[in-house]
């Protein structure tokens, strides 16, 4: 008698079709953001290694991340990198906040586990609470015309820059 065993791809696809709730979505997002951050980490260690190996290449790479190739700026490239930067920021923020939710389940098997749905919405709320100002600041750097609201962020930032680097 032959039974039907699912292959790797089929198991992945069928798993995604399962009607899981908030827990399954945060599990999936935790994985995807984790893998994304790891990929970035590998690239980032390589490019930072260039500071010791070849300062000129390091500056060239940093310029490239800023949308410049040989000192010439390509606005589309620059926007793409800034959106990627936002994606990275969002990934780290979600992975961190959801990681705290997972740790709470370990610390409190009864109360935190019982409140898992509420905790999921707390993660979502905290994520947007952090990401909305972050998006504003990152996108602001791309916009030429400063606005009064932006100035309120930029002025104290210039002050802090003197001490934190």
């Amino acid at each position, binding site marked *: 008698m032959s039974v039907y065993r699912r292959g790797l791809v089929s198991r992945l696809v069928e798993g995604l079709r399962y009607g899981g709730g908030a827990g399954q979505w945060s599990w999936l997002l935790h994985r995807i953001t984790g*893998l994304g951050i790891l990929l970035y980490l590998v690239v980032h*260690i*390589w490019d930072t290694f260039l*500071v010791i190996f070849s300062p000129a290449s390091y500056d060239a790479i940093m310029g490239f991340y800023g949308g410049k190739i040989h000192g*010439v700026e390509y606005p589309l490239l*620059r926007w793409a990198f800034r959106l990627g930067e936002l994606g990275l920021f969002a990934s780290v923020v979600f992975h961190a906040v959801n990681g705290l939710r997972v740790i709470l389940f370990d610390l409190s098997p009864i109360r935190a586990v019982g409140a898992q749905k509420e905790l999921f919405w707390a993660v979502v709320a905290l994520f947007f609470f952090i990401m909305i100002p972050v998006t504003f*600041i990152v996108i602001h*750097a791309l916009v030429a015309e400063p606005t009064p609201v932006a100035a309120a962020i930029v002025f104290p930032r210039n002050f802090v*820059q003197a001490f*934190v680097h």
Partner: protein
Amino acid sequence: MAVTARSRRVKPAGGFELAAWYFMRISGLFLVFLALGHLCIMHLIHNVESINYNFVSDRWTNPQTGYIWRLWDLTMVNLAILHGFNGLRQILEEWINRAKSRVVLRTGIWIFAGALLLLGNYAILMFVKDADYLKNRRDASSDAVTVRADVDRGASSRHPAAVPAFDVLK
């Protein structure tokens, strides 16, 4: 009616998976502060477009604060690599079930992670400022101002405080 004690003690377990579980929680808590702090400093307080060799070399060799930033980066890079690659191992082992494949997988992951650990630690610990490069670069960029004045003015007006801030500290 005396029955039994309220709780029993058994030997706390050890083992690799338990240690890995502990490590993921503790490193995760550290990384919440280290990685998010790093992102805030580099992307919000500063701006990725203002980060260059000059910035990094000043950051790591500043006589007052250089050691703090190197220690921060060192802790972060080591915890992040181990946390990330252990996470990758856990994900892949979930989908790759054969014992032999898992051995290959683990070996590959730890060799790759080990190589990255070496690169990261070496860069942070052994960094020395390349003064010649910075001098040449300043000369070259002062030429560039005359050649592409429009481009450079655009760049400096976007990040006015990036370079002068360090002059204040030095």
